[in-house]
């Protein structure tokens, strides 16, 4: 029942709008439309509406030489996503200059670049990747081989079809999108990476490799380094085979080193490891996940609402997001987050025990940085609410509630709500009779008052003692 219902829902959704969170217009760049035969399953998966998860992209095919090709029309993107297959041309023409591609990324467009060691990468793409701090081998071509992990059935001699386990996240606090491991099939999946190019990544936090080469793999130039590798580009885990870049505006650029791994013949092909064990490849599912991530179908976060309120006894219940707080007020902050997963928004959950969403309460620099905890009472089927209670610092000024949740493979969450924090009013302090240290001073005032009244009475009504003295004569 449930799959049927979601299938109906997705058919309906595809009729109305895109299933990706950022549109379904996908431009595929390839030399010749006839090439798409070899990628028919991959492209068919992108277009499919018939089986789950239906993805429903509208594919347009263009050759880089095409005159009519244009990424922008009147300043708006004409496509939501770009997919580059290897092309034989040296550049990509005036319509796909690196500048235009960077503009496309700045306009929140996503790009999936595939390379192949057989064809030299176009200069336009090399420049774009350089801009993102992804370096390719010097003369725009390279071949990754591994003499220890290769497919014994298809490349017993050339060792250029790498057989790799599907990648698990390097860090425990990174969500697992690509390994395909779950409870129902815990066994390790195997990827074939045929005749691909490896890249090295810069040190920035925006770059994240999905698939790295094994320890013994290396990249060489098949034209010049046939006999021996004297000048090494990169080897081992420095080589990224599938790498991602997510810009600050959450636009995504993915580099797949081997376009061939997306071809029909490697989807569900059987590969043989050194030990002679034949295994079905995981390529089809991996291609679906990599393209789905790039085109904003997974790993997209949405902030549904944010609420902060006074959390003190007697505080009004119906006032949320006030503009002003007082120092040392107790405050509760809640943020509701959803994560998009293929066809629907789902509650966002953190990797267990290793990651946390943090709230900063900051004026110039954070005064508090606190971990938010899931709040079941405010969560729903499509959203998780995370909240924290805390005491406003004893400094007055303009403060921000700031949630900056940026993680590899998840779109960036950057939320800032500004409030004033005032000092304690003169009539909000405890009264002096409540302060025991003030009691001697208060009794001093009482004594002064009573003494003054007694003095007035005595001064006005006291009769002199002793003998009566003549007025106007001073006693000598």
């Amino acid at each position, binding site marked *: 029942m449930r799959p049927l219902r979601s299938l109906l829902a997705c058919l309906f959704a595809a009729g109305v709008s895109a299933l990706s969170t950022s549109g379904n217009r996908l431009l595929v760049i390839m030399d010749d439309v006839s090439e798409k035969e070899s990628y028919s399953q991959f492209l068919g998966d992108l277009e499919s509406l018939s089986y789950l998860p239906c993805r429903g992209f509208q594919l347009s095919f263009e050759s880089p030489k095409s005159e009519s090709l244009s990424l922008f029309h009147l300043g708006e993107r004409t496509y939501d996503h770009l997919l580059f297959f290897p092309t034989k041309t040296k550049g990509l023409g005036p319509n796909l200059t690196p500048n235009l591609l960077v503009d496309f990324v700045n306009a929140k467009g996503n790009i999936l670049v595939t390379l192949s060691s057989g064809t030299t990468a176009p200069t336009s793409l090399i420049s774009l990747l350089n801009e993102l701090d992804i370096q390719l081998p010097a003369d725009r071509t390279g071949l990754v081989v591994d*003499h*220890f992990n290769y497919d014994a059935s298809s490349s*017993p*001699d*050339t060792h250029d079809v790498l057989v790799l386990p599907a990648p698990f996240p390097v860090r425990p*606090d990174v969500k697992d999108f690509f390994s395909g491991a779950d409870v129902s099939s815990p066994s390790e999946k195997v990827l074939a990476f045929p005749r691909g190019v490896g890249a090295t990544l810069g*040190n*920035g*936090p925006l770059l994240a490799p999905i698939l790295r080469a094994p320890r*013994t793999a*290396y990249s060489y130039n098949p034209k010049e380094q046939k*006999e*021996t*590798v*004297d000048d*090494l580009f990169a080897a*081992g*885990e420095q080589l990224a085979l599938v790498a991602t870049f997510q810009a600050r505006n959450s636009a995504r650029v993915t580099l797949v080193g081997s376009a061939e791994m997306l071809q029909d013949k490697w989807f569900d092909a059987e590969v043989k490891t050194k030990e002679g064990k034949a295994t079905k490849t995981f390529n089809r599912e991996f291609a679906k996940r990599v393209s789905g991530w790039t085109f904003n179908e997974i790993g997209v976060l949405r902030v549904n609402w944010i609420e902060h309120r006074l959390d003190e006894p007697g505080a009004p219940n119906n006032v949320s997001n006030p503009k002003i707080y007082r120092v*040392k007020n107790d405050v509760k902050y809640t943020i509701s987050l959803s994560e998009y997963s293929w066809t629907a928004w789902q509650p966002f959950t953190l990797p267990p025990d290793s*990651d946390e969403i*943090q709230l*900063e309460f900051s004026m110039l620099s*954070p*005064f*508090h*940085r*606190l*971990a938010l905890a899931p709040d079941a009472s405010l969560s729903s089927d499509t959203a998780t609410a995370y909240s924290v209670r805390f*005491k406003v*610092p*004893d400094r007055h000024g303009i403060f921000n509630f700031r949630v900056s949740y*940026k*993680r*590899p493979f998840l779109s960036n969450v950057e939320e800032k709500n500004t409030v004033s924090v005032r000092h304690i009013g003169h009539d909000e302090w405890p009264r002096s009779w409540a*302060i*025991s*240290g*003030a*009691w*001697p001073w*208060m*009794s001093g005032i*009482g*004594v002064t*008052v009573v*003494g*003054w*009244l*007694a003095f*007035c*009475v*005595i001064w*006005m*009504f*006291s*009769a*002199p*003692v002793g003998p009566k*003295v003549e*007025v106007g004569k001073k006693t000598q």
Partner: protein
Amino acid sequence: MRLTHSVASALLLLCAGAAQAATSWGFDEGVIQVVPKKAGEVIKERTPLAKPVTLGATDTLKLSLTAKDNGIGKRPHQAFLLLQESNLGVEAPFPLTVKESGKATVQITQKDLPVQLLAAEEPLKASIVLASFGSAQGYNGQVFEIKVELDPNLPPPTREAPVRYGKKPLIFHKFNPDPKSPPKVVSIFFALAVIACLPVLLISWLFLGANIKHLPKALSAAPVSHAVFFGSIVAMEGVFFMYYTSWNLFQTLPVIAAVAVVTVLSGTKALGEVQSRRLAGDRY
């Protein structure tokens, strides 16, 4: 072309099937030398060196070996020396220069090492990888360890951790301490001491002869003004009390003004009566 290629690969596959178990890469005549010290150490394929090789700041480590495919000297496509830092797992490859005969050499100084390896606390693990195309089994073995001895006169290399998105350390604001009162006993003691001054004052006034003997005389002379004057003084204290407990300044000021007018008007009369007593010689 494709046909010949596939035929060739099929043939190779057949050959491979036959020879796979037999051929494998290895090396011979492996020697490590740290240059100024001149003491070369022989390394073997299967037995790693017991002691780590020390690489000083000005030393050059020379590794030479002869790569062999099944005992015959041959040039492998991949001949790397991999240095691994055991803590982070950072690995740096150093390709060996190989001749046709399989003779391979590499020289390493501290300048060639990346910072992560220089800053390593434990000896670096050195593996030799010899492998090539075809069916021959590659060789990958950890054969020795390198201990990097830094120049003590230079500041040690520092490795800056790259920026990675992740959770940050928590911060909890340190509040200023609340104002504190002394123990209540002390406050009560001093409050009582202050209050005790009042009876002392009144009693000492009595000893000095203070009295209210003129009260009937004053009241009979100017009853209303004396009553109102004294009442206004008491009322003024009452206004101050109200200001202390609940009123604000703008409630207090008009009342003070009203009471003050009463005080002035009744005071002229009442104090005039006091003056008349003085003039009559009843008081000083």
